[in-house]
């Protein structure tokens, strides 16, 4: 229960900050960052929020069903731009896969080499 309290509290503070800064970033995302910060700084123990967070994360897919059902009102918007949306989404997904994969791979190889070199020098 304490975990739920902290989640609601950070959301509340997030909403407050969001409305103070003009609402470009929604309150729950600021709340997410605040929760992450509180956990990293050690002010809040992970065990406290774990049960509530695990439950919410596990059932998250159910919570956005109403948004998907909203398609019954907005389907004509998607149909009207179907090809633009499908092509841009598919190509862009390929771009993300390749950019993220290649960047990570090349940097990971380099840091591994540095690590090996340090080991050799020290050993």
């Amino acid at each position: 229960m304490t975990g739920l309290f902290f989640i609601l509290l950070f959301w509340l503070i997030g909403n407050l900050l969001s409305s103070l800064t003009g609402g470009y970033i929604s309150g729950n995302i600021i709340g997410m960052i605040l929760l992450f910060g509180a956990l990293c700084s050690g002010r809040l123990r992970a065990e406290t929020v774990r049960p509530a967070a695990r439950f919410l994360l596990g059932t998250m897919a159910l919570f956005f069903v109403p948004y998907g059902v909203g398609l019954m009102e907005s389907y004509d918007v998607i149909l009207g731009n179907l090809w633009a949306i499908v092509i841009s989404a598919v190509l862009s997904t390929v771009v993300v896969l390749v950019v993220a994969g290649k960047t990570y791979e090349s940097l990971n190889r380099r840091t591994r080499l540095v690590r090996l070199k340090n080991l050799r020098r020290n050993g």
Partner: protein
Amino acid sequence: MVDFIRSDLFLLTLTVGLYCAGGMLYRRMRMPLLHPVLLTFVSLIVFLLCADIPYERYKEATRMLDFALGMSVVALGYLLYEQVERLRGSLLPVAVATIAGCIAGVASVVYIAMAFGVDRTILTSIAPKSVTVPIAVSVSGPLGGMVSVTSVVVFCVGIFGSIFGEWILARCGVRDPEARGFALGAAAHGIGTARAIEIGAVEGALSGLAMALMGLATALLVPLMEKYMY
């Protein structure tokens, strides 16, 4: 009878029930296209149309789920912490790949759609298409996007990425298992992560990390990009 079918409790029970039934069917069939959430979307839309219940009524009845979605976005802060704790040490590749993937993803989807002459509302709706649905709708909503378009597009992107992701990565010569997992999580959020966990433990861990970090980076970058880029 009509009042009964239109009641909050009935619509909520039906939503949760269909979601559970979809999950059972999915576990039996094991076909990625029959994702439980997609099945729930479709069956609910068919039901509401047949029973002649307007979307407004349904949305009002399921406000509770919307509230829970808001809480689960905050709870993602916990997921982020858990993943970052596990990482320790190799911060550079992760941070650079996240930022590169995020900027490339948002810029490519926006500019390609723009070339087709799509209007701004839809551009904003599909800009956060690589991140988990709760974050995507929290990003596109306040900027003036259509959240129903966002949620469906993001979902389909996840399914596409989880089906074809491995093949595309293999074709492009990404062989490092860590990089593969990372790319799957970055491009196909939770659904890609579910696939990565099936491939292996290393892939799964990196995928979860990528999904959490992409969510954070996108939430911070899209509002800026929306202002200055298009």
